[in-house]
């Protein structure tokens, strides 16, 4: 059960990080001069999403 | 394929107090040593260098500004000098003109005076000449008259008186 939950969490996070990445690419294409700012914010946001996913995965694994 | 419980062997998620102790010790030591020995000096050196570069740029800008100022000043000076020169030239010309005109005036005056003098002299000479001429004419006339009268008249004295009066009349006229 836990493994399935972890998988679902990873799925959600994957979609979320994919969206972040796609929007960041759009933004960079639109404003290539702001690439530094966009990259930093992208990594930060992705890290936050990933944090939530990892949280879910750990809880899923702990529940066995 | 195996009955080993996943978590039981997954020892990396079991925090070992020894490892915690050593991690903390090593990290804090590295932080302290690097902070003291490397990061602060590097930070200061970088800041120093940035300041140096900024100073150099500022100085360059200042020098350029000064150069521009100097150039403007030079131009100003040059302009002033040119004006001065023009003024001096003008004054010189004016002086020349006055001198010339004065000289001309003076020359004219002199000439005039000379002419005047010459005229007066001429008049004098003429007067003298006229007087002389009159005298000569008188004498001549007297001679003429004497001769005439000697021939015609014996009364010499009366004749002479008469002629003299005539001559005076002529002088008066």
């Amino acid at each position, binding site marked *: 059960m836990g493994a399935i939950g972890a998988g679902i969490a990873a799925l959600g996070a994957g979609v979320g990080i994919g969206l972040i990445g796609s929007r960041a690419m759009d933004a960079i294409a639109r404003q290539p001069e702001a690439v530094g700012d966009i990259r930093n914010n992208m*990594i930060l946001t992705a890290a936050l999403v990933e*944090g939530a996913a990892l949280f879910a995965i750990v809880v899923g694994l702990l529940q066995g | 394929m195996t009955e080993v419980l996943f978590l039981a062997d997954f020892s990396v998620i079991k925090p070992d107090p*020894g490892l915690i102790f050593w991690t903390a010790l090593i990290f804090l030591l590295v932080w302290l040593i690097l902070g003291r*020995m490397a990061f602060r000096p590097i930070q200061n050196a970088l800041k120093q260098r940035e300041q140096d570069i900024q100073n150099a740029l500022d100085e360059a800008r200042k020098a350029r500004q000064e150069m521009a100022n100097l150039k403007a000043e030079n131009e100003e000076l040059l302009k002033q000098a040119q004006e001065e020169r023009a003024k001096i030239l003008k004054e010189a010309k004016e002086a020349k003109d006055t001198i010339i005109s004065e000289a001309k005036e003076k020359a004219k005056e002199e000439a005039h005076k000379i002419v005047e003098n010459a005229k007066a002299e001429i008049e004098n000479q003429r007067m003298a000449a006229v007087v002389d001429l009159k005298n000569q004419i008188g004498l001549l006339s007297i001679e003429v008259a004497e001769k005439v009268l000697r021939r015609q008249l014996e009364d010499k004295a009366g004749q002479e008186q008469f002629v003299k009066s005539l001559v005076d009349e002529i002088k008066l006229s």
Partner: protein
Amino acid sequence: MKVEFKKLSILVFALAFSWGMLLAQGHGQAQEEHGVETEQQGEHGGEAGHGGHEDGKYDPVGTVMGHIADANEFHVWKGVHLPLPVILYAPEHGWTTGLSSMFQHGHVAVDGYVLNHGRVNRVADPAFPKGEAHIDGVVAHKVEEADGKEKDVYYAVHEGQEYLLDPPSTVDGGFLGGRITSFYDFSITKNVFTMLLAGLLLILLFSAVARGYRKNIHKAPSGIQSFMEVFFVFIRDEVTKPMIGEKHYERFQPFIMTLFFFILFCNLMGLIPFFPGSANVTGNLAVTMTLAVITFLVVNFNGKRDYWEHVFWMPGIPAWVKIILTPVEILSLFIKPFSLMIRLFANISAGHIIILSLIGLVFLFGNNGQSVGGAAGGAVIGGLFTAFMNLIELLVAFLQAFIFAILTASYIGAAVEEHHHDEAHGEAH
């Protein structure tokens, strides 16, 4: 042409790494198998081998878990081990110190301490002889716990008698399968050794850089100095300055730099498949937990009035929302370092596990030495995938160090910020 050459050399490099990894694991495997043999000899034909090596069969999970685990000795090459100092403390016995070589790879017990799969365990039974004692081997039994989970329990065999082995104490409070046992292990383990090495390398590197700055004062940087300056300036301009702010960033620059480089070096050393590397340092929860706790302390000790006000009594919102928000904010104080801890741990551990699993394909396909063709196929497939994963892990090593640093900087930034209350509320928690 030049680019082609570069690509090719990267590929060769990555392949060489995976091959090194393969060798390392192969030897480990061979050695453990050797261990199984001696054990079975000493077991008077006992029922089972230990761990996953029942009947000499290859157990991928056990092998992978063994390789990412911490150890009291450092495997160098072909059964050559670097002995590491052991410092052990049992409340009822006191301190025991020495080198891990005194255990002779699990054949000798010292003061009841036995080396089991590279890790020191202890016999708590007072009947076990003190001082040095020969042991015939270590056996494992499966025990069903109260909640139905199965667990391996190890026993040391001494003169035909089996004695229960205690693993080292862990401080997870039983949540993660650990517990406080009869002793504490303060040894210089493989992970500690690697961390020391990383710290030493960092100190050497940066002392050289700092020397450059002293030497080249009022001059252009040169050599290693100009190489490392890029990192310093990058961390300053991309991480600390924008995250912490112009006013406070200088105070925290050394901390963020130390974090970044310490994590980066530990990550990179974990990627080296042979001796000085290969330890799963940042993939160990104890390490990331310590780093996260230090970060937590740094952030909260530097918290300004505004920060605490935002945590306990968020200004600018209705009172009933404040009552809901305050617990959330307090919780988020702890979730932030917790997510730092989990993120680094999970990324690095997962990388190690994937690479080791791919290498394990060689042994799985080779049917544990029965099928040479299968092993060759496994080597090709596993090697290529491992090369690919190694490149990704190289990226991850930098990325995770960077993320740890940038998130720490942003937490510090939130703590030291003094705001005027209309902006800075869009920040997500």
